[in-house]
């Protein structure tokens, strides 16, 4: 698989900075955004294959961000990652086209596999 580029979006800076380090070590190209708006700004100017999106963020929440990201980049696969287990929110995200809805704490291996699967899906759709 060619280098997969991932955009991590979460207001918990410490969390995604650590995650970014670990994913980079596994050969992924990682970008960070600390809010939904930052993610949109980044995507307006850059490409990414997969986004990992927190659901609960101040300002624009994950569901709203998902909608806008999908409108901007329909081909981008989005993984939701959250500490709020909520059936309705999860379903809403899936219906809006999220690739998966994962709950913290998530094992790195599992997240990595999900990113690979999402990336492969994106490649096959092209």
């Amino acid at each position, binding site marked *: 698989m060619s280098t997969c580029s991932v955009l991590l979006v979460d207001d918990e800076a410490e969390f995604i900075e650590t995650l970014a380090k670990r994913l980079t070590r596994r050969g992924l190209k990682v970008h960070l955004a600390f809010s939904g708006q930052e993610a949109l700004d980044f995507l307006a100017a850059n490409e990414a294959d997969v986004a990992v999106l927190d659901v*609960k963020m101040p300002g624009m929440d994950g569901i709203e961000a998902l909608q806008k990201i999908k409108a901007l980049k329909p081909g981008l696969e989005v993984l939701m990652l959250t*500490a*709020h*287990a*909520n*059936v*309705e929110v*999860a*379903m809403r995200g*899936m219906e809006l086209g999220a690739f*998966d*809805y994962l*709950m*913290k*704490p998530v094992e790195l*291996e*599992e997240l990595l*596999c999900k990113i690979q*699967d999402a990336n*492969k*899906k994106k490649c*096959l*759709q092209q």
Partner: protein
Amino acid sequence: MFTRLKTFFSSLIGGHHQGEGMSDEEILAEFKKRYHNFRLLLTANKKTLMIMSEMEQALRGASVFGMSFVRSQATAASVNVYRIVKHLSEIAPGKYDALFERLKDIQAQIAAVLDRQPQTAATELVLPLEAVDRAHADQVGSKMANLGDIMARVGLPVPPGFAVTALAYSRFMRDTGLGDEINRLIQAVGADDHATLLPLCSQIQQMIQNAKLPPDVAEAILKAYLELEARTEPDVRVSMRSSALGEDAMGQSFAGQFRSVLGVSAEELLIAYKEIVASKYSPQAVTYRMAKGIPNEDVAMCVGCMAMVKARSGGVIYSRNPLSIRDDEIFIHSAWGLAKTVVDGAVASDLFVARRGDPPRLTEQRIACKDRVYLCDPVEGVCRHEEAGEAACAPSLTDEEALRLASMAIRLDEVYAEPLDIEWAMDQERNIFLLQCRPLQQIEAGRAKRPPGQFGKPLAAGGVTGSPGVAAGTVHVVARDLDMLTFPEGGVVLAADAAPRWATLLSRASALVCERGSVAGHLSNVAREFGVPALMGMEGAVAALSGKGEVTVDADGLAVYPGRVESLLALAPKRETPQAQSPMHAILREVLDIVAPLNLLDPSVPEFSPENCLTLHDITRFCHEKSVTEMFRFGQDFQFSKRASKQLKYRVPMKWWFVNLDDGFTREITGKYVTMEEIACEPVLSLWEGFVAVPWAGPPPVDAAGLLHIVAHSTVNRNLTHGGDSEYAQGNYFMISRHYMCLSSRFGYHFCTVEALVDEREHENYVSFQFKGGAAEQGRRALRAKFVGEVLENYNFRVEIQGDEMRAVYAKGPMDLMLDRLRVIGYLLMHTRQIDMVMTNEAMVEGFRQKFAKDIGDILRQAAERHMTEVMREMA
């Protein structure tokens, strides 16, 4: 035929009516996309089954779980089933859209259970104590409801005060967003591990204390205080105590879980209120709820606020003996100052025993040296332990006062018609006030007379029984919070003080030994509730037992022996297993009823349809079945050379067909047949090895009743008759890639699937085997399912059986272990045919059991030897 294919083709590709014009490359690309969806569907399918299994295990097992477990499992199950449906719809566009609606219905049902917040009945933020009776328990908690009742209905003295209601609590949690945030923290961090529990609890408690109360709640509390002040004295100090909703219900004592704050002034009122609310998340309260299966949401923290009693002495009355159901004497524990010293187990207490009668009589009094007094300064409000001085060893009650307390206890016991645990205080003018009154849990202690020396020489002896029983474990001294982190599972808690915070350990401890404390303390209370033997007030225990390793604690015989004394342990009554019907279990059960039951069993009947999917499991099952069918059909119906199904030729053509999903063949196969040598799918090769390793001896001899059943059954089930027109009658259909196989097979009399994924993602590897049916009647089929399940359990499969359906999964493991599992299944496919017929013949079953064990042992050994030889050859 061609027309049918064309129509089908267009329906698959949707808008592409020129479908037949697609090149091989385009079809291949389409196939690859669907195959990826199929793989993802399988992953989600496996994940869903795993989640359901975890939920079922939690329900059956003794493990503790909270609401965050139920919520995240239910959400994960919903998400994965959504993915399954989505992937199926990518494999067969538009064909199964009805499933999305079904799924929505089911998810709404799950969400309804999870979102059902306990509605508070309270309409006021605060209620004066006089306005409260037992009927208000769901508004102010049972502690305050009982006190109001005692005052209004029984006419016994209670200090004036008011209660801050459940409404105030829920407003506090909701308006500040604290409720959501706490759930989030508990889910993300997890409260089941002691190392994470302490920091988690302190973080949550701090959040609560730092939060701002909704203005009207704060105002209501301050106004109620002003009214209390007007009725008592200026600057009246108050005690504030938790009165949690659900306390005392269902035998949950919550003893000593939550904070009480004494000597509170007007300025500290709101801080103290938040402190008590925060104590809902003290480590001992959280572990207690986990162990008892009480959802956090169910515990609304009401707070009672009462004028302080300037206590001369105080303590606890048991209206009957907590350790003997037959003993109806009254037990009065008393110490100098506030009752706190007695319930916290901080100092020894006097004991007065009274016999019922008119008037009651004292039968026994034991006066202890009460070296410390707990007092609150009426002006400063500060509360502290003080030296008791020369009064220390004097009785803290006169006989007359003890009898007055006894009379009150008898009165209350009669009114409420149950044994009671009553906290009291007596002021300087010798007026008695009741501070708390709750049902007393009586248990039967094995009142033991142990002849001296019967069990050897004890390491320590003496004290009183706090909770009956005998248990052994390794001694672990606890003095600081830090010591709780290193407490070993099944250890003996050894402490100087009988502090309520040690209660956190009782769900994991085998026994408890304390130097101080009595049967009346919180810690004893909780120990009795958890069935943990406890020895209290055992002087010098810490020095005598520290570092002694494993000991046997005889709480009945008041002694601790070195090592495990089996003969003594044998005398202990069996400890009851934790109740499997907690409120938390009930919620999980309710969710599982929407998730787990499987109603769609037989794919060959018309009822096997989206409309009949009632649970997540039904949808999962339906989609799995259909995805296999659709993938197979795609491979078979598109007659382009690379993808068509090939029939296996092994000496002669066999009834095994293969569809190559990706890289399952070693080369491109152009003819009709494929040979085993041309198959590159490792799981299939291993399965085949097991299948052909030992020749089948043919069907076992069938008795008359069994035979009759086959004949009858064959005439009604078309699948069983030769040449039946069911879709894939009499064939074994494999879908393969290099690392994946899916066999769905309708062997003559039963249906089975074998699915395996064995590749470099070790943690995603799995081998699953399901089968159902047979020719014999239900009873024997079920016996065979059980028999096969038992064989598989010997090879560490996780097995679930429902009637005649058996599901076995072996998940996560390195390749060679996974392939061995496939050899076992291959063997079973060959040799379990028709053995359902003889399942009621115990001798034959035993014969099969032995033969299977031997054969499988041989097969695995040979495979291992072959593997070794290859490794050696490569190395050479």
